């Protein structure tokens, strides 16, 4: 039997293969502190492809597409497993979409999107390393410039 570093959950979502350093960031954007059911966070776990990886298990919650897009921005190598009755019923890699709406704010304080109650909209210029361009002011930003909404 496989020896697990982080306990299994009965139902919910498992975000695996997070770059270990980004684990807490992913936890923050998923607002896991507001969850009522069990949340397990593991860091510095051994990984063949990443060296060290992080994992987050959220009991009783199926994460939605918007949350998957958010994860993709922070942890482009992550995989998501949907668990039902201890079994994986769906498994997929996160993918950065072509356009990102309502997740990342434009970092330009003079951008109209930061003044007129607009939902931020950014076009993905490059997926790895990630590079985004504001739909409105055209400023280009990389992951160091991201301000999540």
């Amino acid at each position, binding site marked *: 039997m496989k020896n697990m570093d982080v306990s299994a959950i009965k139902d919910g979502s498992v975000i695996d293969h997070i770059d270990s350093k980004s684990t807490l960031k992913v936890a923050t954007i998923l607002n896991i502190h507001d969850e009522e059911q069990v949340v397990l966070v593991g860091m510095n776990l051994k990984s063949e492809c990443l060296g060290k990886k992080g994992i987050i298990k959220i009991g009783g919650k199926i994460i939605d597409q918007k949350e998957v897009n958010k994860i993709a921005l922070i942890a482009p190598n992550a995989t998501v497993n949907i668990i039902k009755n201890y079994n994986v019923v769906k498994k997929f890699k996160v993918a950065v979409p072509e356009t990102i709406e309502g997740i990342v704010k434009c970092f330009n304080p003079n951008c*109209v999107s930061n003044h*007129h109650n607009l939902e931020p909209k950014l076009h993905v210029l490059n997926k790895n390393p990630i590079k985004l361009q504001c739909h409105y002011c055209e*400023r280009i930003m990389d992951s160091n410039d991201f301000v999540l909404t």
Partner: protein
Amino acid sequence: MASFKQRDIISIRHFNKEELLYILDLSKHMEGYNHTDILKGKMLASLFFEPSTRTRLSFESAMNRLGGTVIGFAEPGASSTAKGESLSDSVKIIDGYCDIIVLRHYLEGSARLAADVAGVPVINAGDGANQHPTQTFLDLYTIRKTKGTLEGITVGFLGDLKYGRTVHSLAYALSHFSTEMYFVSPSSLRMPKDCLEELRQRKVTCHETESLLGISKKLDVIYCTRIQKERFADPVEFEKVRGVYRLSKAQLEEMVTKDDLKILHPLPRVDEMDESLDETDFAVYFHQARNGVPVRKELLASVLGAIE
């Protein structure tokens, strides 16, 4: 090439080389087009949320000379913005009153927002420090007219390169034409790193320096800009760089330059270009301002479908 009819003119990034040359060729043709009625029955809404002399009046002149009419305002205090109306609400309303909108606004991305909510085409007449595409068309037009070509020239950009939207737009446009570029500015007003990165990705040879000394002899064109007080949040920072460059006839005579060097400036100037320069063959900035009319006539006529 995509048709210009009903097309928004928001950013120079949306135009390829073929389209830029098409605009310049038709602008030349439009120089002789005055007192015609090809835009009779068409109405331009001229919405200026920031002060402007050249851009606003040359658009209005162009529209009137082609037989169209103009409505609008020259300052936000004269619009419902003063009552707290949002930009998108203002544009949605004015959209029903006109055939085309020309917009200047202090916020970057405002023209894109206007184009997203308007049914009629929108022309960006300057959005904060971002883009000013019609100025770029007339800058290209002036360079080609005075130098005979846009291909393979060396251009020095001087002054406020950080906030200067005309610099960002022109540098991008010239990247289609194998231009070598020198960016001359105080260290606090250097070209934004994303602009430089984008130019280098487009295989432009870029150099940064704080002085014209040593490079003046290489330049075919100097594109001089005003250090814009209104873009500085901190007046102390403005005072540190105020008057740092002051081009004059005497200075240019002392420097080694090409005989056919041309100096452009989007105007207005403050103290970065002495009036003694005006009488020299270097100065083309007043011609450049005049070129705003044929270029804007061309754009209005193309976007409104009066010429193909």
